[in-house]
């Protein structure tokens, strides 16, 4: 498979176009045409190292560990790599801890696309994705939320 090169002058990347449109057949332009069968990729494929591409039509298969509230930060000392405009924009938001939902909202990127790109950036060693050890919060954490909420006016 070949992927669009964001820096290829013949096919310039279009950061203003939402990637889910960009990856669709209408916006395919000179790119690889969208596959006709809508088979979602196998799970292990989505976690593979693909740092240089937009989601290429993938709408399914985001890492289930990456939730909407999951916190994301830039990996300290990450090496320089070539990134798509969308990915560059994501990395640019993550110098402070930020949630996946906030990334999606601020960049007006579809939530599913954001989750996939964040997963790809993690695989490429660019982002730290802070996945929680225990899925459901413990009583102590809930107590802290209760105390914090009681304190607001």
């Amino acid at each position: 498979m070949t992927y669009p090169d964001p820096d290829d002058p013949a096919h310039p990347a279009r950061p203003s176009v939402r990637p889910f449109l960009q990856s669709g057949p209408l916006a395919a332009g000179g790119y690889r045409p969208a596959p006709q069968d809508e088979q979602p990729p196998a799970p292990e494929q989505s976690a593979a190292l693909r740092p240089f591409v937009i989601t290429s039509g993938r709408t399914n298969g985001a890492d289930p560990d990456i939730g909407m509230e999951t916190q994301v930060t830039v990996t300290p000392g990450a090496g320089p790599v070539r990134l798509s405009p969308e990915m560059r924009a994501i990395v640019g938001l993550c110098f402070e801890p930020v949630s996946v939902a906030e990334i999606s909202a601020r960049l007006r990127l579809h939530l599913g696309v954001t989750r996939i790109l964040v997963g790809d950036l993690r695989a490429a060693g660019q982002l730290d994705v802070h996945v929680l050890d225990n899925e459901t919060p413990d009583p102590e954490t809930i107590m802290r939320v209760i105390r914090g909420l009681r304190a607001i006016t």
Partner: protein
Amino acid sequence: MDYEQSPDRVVGTAAVGSGGPPKKAPVPVKIIVAGGFGVGKTTTVGAISEISPLTTEAEMTSAAVGIDNPGLGSTKTTTTIAMDFGVLTIDQTLKLYIFGTPGQTRFAFMWDDLIKGALGALVVVDTNRIDDCYPAVDYFERAGLPFVVGVNTFNGQMSYSLDEVRWALAIREDVPVLAFDARFRGSVRDALLVVLDQALDKAVRQKSSYS
């Protein structure tokens, strides 16, 4: 291709950028605010959030009625829905996210993602259209997520009493039904505190069943 090797084409590095090392990430927790169209979900989120609500678009897959074959060829429709959310910083290490989500259709995987790790849910009800919240109530019951029914009073006007709402929804005794006003922070806070009470009960029960 040659040009891919030339260093001046290397762009978008994460290593450059403002400020020193990233701060330690806070632990996020979340509460879901669900209900039918126009019941006051966004108003609820906005009343409690420290930022004005942000919106994100997500896929919602609804399985066609009567078809339970999950394999290839099963009839599923995918709709893009707008979900709004707000944030409340509890302290440097803990953040509460409040997600407002429509729930008037049959939903599938989007909601499974949404409620994963959630503390609980507030189901917002308008007494003029009580049945709009059935799918959300059904879903949370089946998912085992603690939830509370919050009747949005819309200026103190309620067509039915809380007991009548409870009866109409046929929910378990231990599910709280309360009245609140989505426009007021204090009122939303109190409703969320009841959700958190339910969440705490469940967490304590789970913990003691392990030890």
